[in-house]
């Protein structure tokens, strides 16, 4: 873990709510190894509404340019301020934090299901999987076409399936209703997005007997195991989702009880 200043290299609005922000260590030190599913804790501005840091997933690591990508959805004051940053601004990050999705040695067929900004960690994950020669299908859901972000990037690492609530892209409806789920089951499912979606995915995986991991977005104060605020109830009791998560095998969660 490090707590260092990054320089904003680029900040691009992908739609009215979401920004893709590329950052590099201000002192140009090389980025350490990071794992898909890990996140950073962004110090915003210490204003009353954003006193605490904000956890944001590692969307992508561009080692060539020494950049981390963050995909940020504006939902409140903190994410709004993050999205308002401009190239050249500094941003202090604590990183890399958390565990990661489990990438097995044995080749397999992976289904990565994301909803909303929950697609963020799946890009980095998809790249790592495809580099290890796994078969990767992405199934991304959103309200409308403009909510399915970074499609060209996803397509580099696997086959992209989409659902939109208004039918403007892919199949109309929710991800869990996509016809792909009726086809031959995958070997692994990784998911990130709104809790109701992840619960539905976990239920599907359980029914089909597919190992499934979900990345949780519990509220966090520290992000590195010191405050015990981010706990998730698991079969092992309350565990910190910032150190023993954010990625959990859905069988260990109490969601379906």
């Amino acid at each position, binding site marked *: 873990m490090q707590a260092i200043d990054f320089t904003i290299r680029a900040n691009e609005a992908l739609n009215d709510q979401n920004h893709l922000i590329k950052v590099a260590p201000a002192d140009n030190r090389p980025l350490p190894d990071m794992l898909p599913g890990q996140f950073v804790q962004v110090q915003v501005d210490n204003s009353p509404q954003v*006193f*605490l*840091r904000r956890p944001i997933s590692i969307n992508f690591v561009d080692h060539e340019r020494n950049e981390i990508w963050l995909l940020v959805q504006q939902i409140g004051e903190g994410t709004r301020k993050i999205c308002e940053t401009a190239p050249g601004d500094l941003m202090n990050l604590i990183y890399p934090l958390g565990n990661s999705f489990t990438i097995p040695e044995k080749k397999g067929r992976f289904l990565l299901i994301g909803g909303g900004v929950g697609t963020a960690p799946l890009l980095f994950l998809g790249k790592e999987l495809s580099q290890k020669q796994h078969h990767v299908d992405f199934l991304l859901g959103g309200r409308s076409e403009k909510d399915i972000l970074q499609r060209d990037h996803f397509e580099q690492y696997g086959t992209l399936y989409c659902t939109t609530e208004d039918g403007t892209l892919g199949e109309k409806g929710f991800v869990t209703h996509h016809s792909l789920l009726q086809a031959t089951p995958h070997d692994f499912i990784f998911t990130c997005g709104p809790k109701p979606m992840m619960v539905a995915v976990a239920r599907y995986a359980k029914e089909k007997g597919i190992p499934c991991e979900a990345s949780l977005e*519990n*509220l*966090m104060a520290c992000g*590195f195991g010191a405050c015990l605020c981010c706990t998730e109830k698991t079969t092992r009791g*309350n565990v910190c989702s910032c150190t023993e998560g954010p990625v959990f095998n859905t069988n260990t969660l109490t969601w379906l009880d």
Partner: protein
Amino acid sequence: MARLDVKIGGLTLKNPVTTASGTFGYGTEYIDFMDLGKLGGIFVKGTTIEPRQGNDYPRMAETPSGMLNSVGLQNKGVDYFVEHLYPVIKEYDTHMMVNVSGSTVEDYVACAEKLADLEKMPAIELNISCPNVKEGGMAFGTSCRSAAEVTRAVRAVFPKTLIVKLSPNVTSVSDIAKAVEAEGADSVSLVNTFLGMAIDVESRRPMLSTVTGGLSGPCIKPIAVRMVWEVFRAVNIPIIGMGGICTWQDAIEFILAGAAAIQVGTYNFIDPAAPIKILEGINNYLDRHGFASVNDLVGQMQQI
């Protein structure tokens, strides 16, 4: 360079900057961010006789310049601490002190007894002020009688430095401080968190599973400084001050109000290296103002 060592009862801390219980884990969580040996001391997470799961999620909410928490003393119990955590943390080159919590006087005593046996455990901090557990905790800290009772019982079994952590949720914190001083406490630390709550207006539900929780952070600093100043004029034992300390200026404010040492709490979450920066700032301040020792600053607020 000024002298930084401070005495808390029989214990000498190498400097006045320590970290607050429940915000610094067991120190281990922070080794990537600093040399723990530079700290005056570390107060580890509230420990109870039995293991506790703590409260249900959600356990925190951000509030203006602060946060509410209702962790509820989640810990693996004192036996686990003695067996698995103590062997690791006793190697750190700073004083490790356990924050002891309980629901009954007997719990506190049993816990303190086990900790008294540990060679490298020079002090405990008696938490009679946790607002986040149903029975016990804060209840002990809100009346002089019960605060005195638990202090007396623990004093009888704990011969090393005994620090009693006071609740700010009281009409007169100095009365409680006097009561525990009279029972032989070597020091008082204050403040623990303020009982507060927050409601999400769209769902109309409380932000914490427990409805109420403990408020910490810069928002409470003015009240905490006032309480330290009140207690300073009421007792003769050293005070460990805390409540919203983020910068060296905040730390100096507490020292001027009467704190012999300070604890950094919530702000560790925002800047995990804050205690070290605060220590450097105190050091510079002492030099700049020509103080030979940090002890010369304690309680030295001037008349206006």
